[in-house]
């Protein structure tokens, strides 16, 4: 089968590496692009060709749609894979790629637009019978009238209520109102914030779902109307509205609920004539009700856990679908095996508001072993800068059941060495070792609830570490072992027995 001749990978980091490797296995040539900050990045040397597309700032490089299109055409590419982030969900870019006769490996621009913006997608979903969070969008134009209108709506929906900005994102213009008396005031400030953030003051109301779980469904849709779902991913463990640990299956789903939510996800995709891989996000309330949140019209960061339990390579599936192949699986053929968890390794300081950390990677040693997968774009020697997403690696562990997967992840985190740049590994370890996490008690406020008091482990080096430092300095790194350093099975000395060789008396 001939899929594509050459694919432009319009991304960087681990996802670019992931896509290029998939192409190599499929026998498809690749062109990597890089900003001046990424000239020595791993993805550039994996690809068959690498083209510099500008200075480090994304706006001048990875977001330069025209440059990317020019590179793709000059280098004889017949398809473009956007990865995630950057231009992945930019409908105009998808349209532009198609306009020059290349294949965009993802959904159609139309489907992206239908799913873009919160309000349109909510309406589409309601029309398709997919449950959405009860809400109300004002019809009135004049703020004062809107306030009256929304106050009435709030009464109907019931407090606590959530104010959201129509053009919103990232929590901007978002307010939680529990006391009806405060609604008007909060509407005011929310409008101001929305106006400043998005140049659009329009806000709407949504019922507040307390203690929700973030459950998303992976779907695949070919160009012949065939849509299937590959089950859920629970992404409730978040810090500052960003996922850090995802797992599948969700401890909260029964087979029956999974079937219903999966069907809703498929309906959502069909409602917009969706093609290729996508993810439908739901809020799952403690009472078992679920509500459509939004659809991510791209490959997700956390796609590997779905691959681990279904055995399906989602990147290869994306490429085959884009090449016009029909889905080779029927829904009944999809089975789930074992449990998979992904931990996102960020270059950030959990002890300091998760501020991005920078530096040169001095030492790098990733854990290996059965059921352990590491997706990363960094090598020892790389400089982690501030230009791009601080996620530098994904650690994915699979095992027969959740308990074993958690133990494996715990082991793997304890063996993931990244020196030279501060990472969230100790924080991830704290989560994975927390009793509530072990019990599967997950919710989007898990971190706030259980790790508010988290402190980084002591910097105090053990005696062993000090010994290692001194020996390295004594012998000089790189000196070969002293002759006869190995003592043939001589009497064993327990370090504790030897521990206190000679003491200086007091005084």
């Amino acid at each position: 089968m001939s899929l594509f001749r050459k694919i432009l990978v319009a991304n960087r980091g681990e996802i670019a590496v992931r896509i290029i490797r998939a192409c190599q296995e499929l026998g498809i040539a690749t062109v990597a692009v890089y900003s001046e900050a990424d000239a020595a990045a791993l993805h550039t040397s994996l690809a068959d060709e690498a083209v510099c597309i500008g200075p480090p700032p994304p706006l001048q490089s990875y977001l330069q749609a025209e440059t990317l299109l020019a590179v793709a055409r000059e280098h004889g590419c017949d398809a473009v894979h956007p990865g995630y982030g950057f231009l992945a969900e930019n409908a105009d870019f998808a349209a532009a790629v198609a306009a020059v006769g290349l294949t965009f490996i993802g959904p159609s621009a139309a489907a992206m637009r239908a799913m873009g913006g919160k309000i349109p997608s909510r309406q589409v979903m309601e029309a398709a019978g997919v449950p959405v969070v009860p809400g109300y969008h004002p019809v009135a134009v004049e703020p004062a009238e809107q306030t009256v209108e929304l106050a009435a709506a709030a009464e109907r929906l019931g407090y606590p209520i959530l104010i959201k900005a129509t053009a919103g994102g990232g929590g901007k213009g978002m307010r939680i109102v529990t006391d009806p008396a405060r609604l008007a005031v909060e509407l005011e400030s929310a409008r101001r914030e929305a106006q400043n953030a998005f140049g659009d003051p329009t806000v709407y109301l949504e019922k507040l779902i307390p203690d929700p779980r973030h459950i998303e469904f992976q779907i695949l849709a070919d160009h012949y109307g065939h849509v299937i779902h590959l089950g859920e991913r629970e992404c409730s463990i978040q810090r500052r509205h960003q996922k850090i640990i995802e797992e599948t299956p969700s401890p909260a789903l029964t087979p029956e609920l999974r079937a219903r939510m999966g069907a809703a996800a498929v309906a959502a995709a069909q409602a917009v004539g969706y093609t290729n891989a996508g993810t439908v996000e739901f809020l799952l309330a403690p009472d078992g009700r679920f509500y459509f949140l939004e659809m991510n019209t791209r490959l997700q960061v956390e796609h590997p856990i779905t691959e681990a339990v279904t055995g399906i390579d989602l990147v290869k599936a994306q490429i085959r679908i884009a090449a016009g192949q029909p889905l080779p699986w029927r829904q009944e053929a999809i089975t789930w095996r074992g449990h998979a968890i992904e931990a996102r390794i960020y270059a950030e300081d959990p002890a300091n508001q998760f501020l991005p950390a920078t530096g040169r990677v001095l030492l790098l040693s990733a854990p290996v072993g059965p059921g352990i997968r590491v997706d990363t774009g960094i090598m020892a020697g790389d400089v982690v800068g501030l230009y791009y997403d601080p996620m530098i690696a994904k650690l994915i562990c699979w095992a027969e059941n959740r308990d074993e997967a958690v133990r494996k992840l715990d082991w793997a985190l304890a063996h993931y060495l990244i020196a030279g740049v501060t990472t969230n590994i100790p924080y991830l370890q704290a989560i994975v070792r927390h009793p509530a996490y072990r019990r599967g008690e997950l919710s989007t406020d898990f971190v706030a609830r259980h790790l508010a008091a988290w402190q980084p482990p002591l910097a105090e080096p053990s005696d062993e570490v000090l010994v290692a430092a001194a020996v390295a300095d004594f012998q000089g790194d790189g000196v070969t072992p002293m002759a006869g350093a190995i003592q043939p099975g001589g009497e064993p000395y327990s370090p504790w027995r030897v521990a206190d060789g000679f003491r200086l008396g007091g005084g």
Partner: protein
Amino acid sequence: MEFRYAWGDGEATVQVQAAGDGLWVTIRRPGQEPVGYRVMVLRCEAERLILRMGERHLLFHVARDGKARVVAQGARVFRLEPPTLREARPPAAGDLTAVMPGKVLDVLVQPGQRVDAGTPLVILEAMKMELRITAPGDGVVTAVFVRAGDVVNPGQKLVELH
């Protein structure tokens, strides 16, 4: 040879000396009694260090970062201030006592003798290896309590320094 490391709010002095077919490493933390370890260097490469301490084989990744010494054990990374090759500062005067049973092979100093830091004072045989007991700092030997051939027990005074 002695190295000094500092981190956060802590610091330590680490002395390394050849002992038998391995190394003898003594760690001095302020306000604590020094602790000595017998260490076998199984491998010492650009980035990897494998030590045998007691019956444990310990794998470390090591690097230099400018002047700092970086040591990693598993995922845990420690950044230690630049090791500076230096003479030990004279510690509080006191006397050297053995805490392991051993045999005195030789006494190298006599009362009244002025010694510098690192001067070998007594050679002991303990656990099948020779250990050189050296002066922790500059000073004067005020008393010698043992002779070659003596068998010493834990706690027994060897030499007194001032």
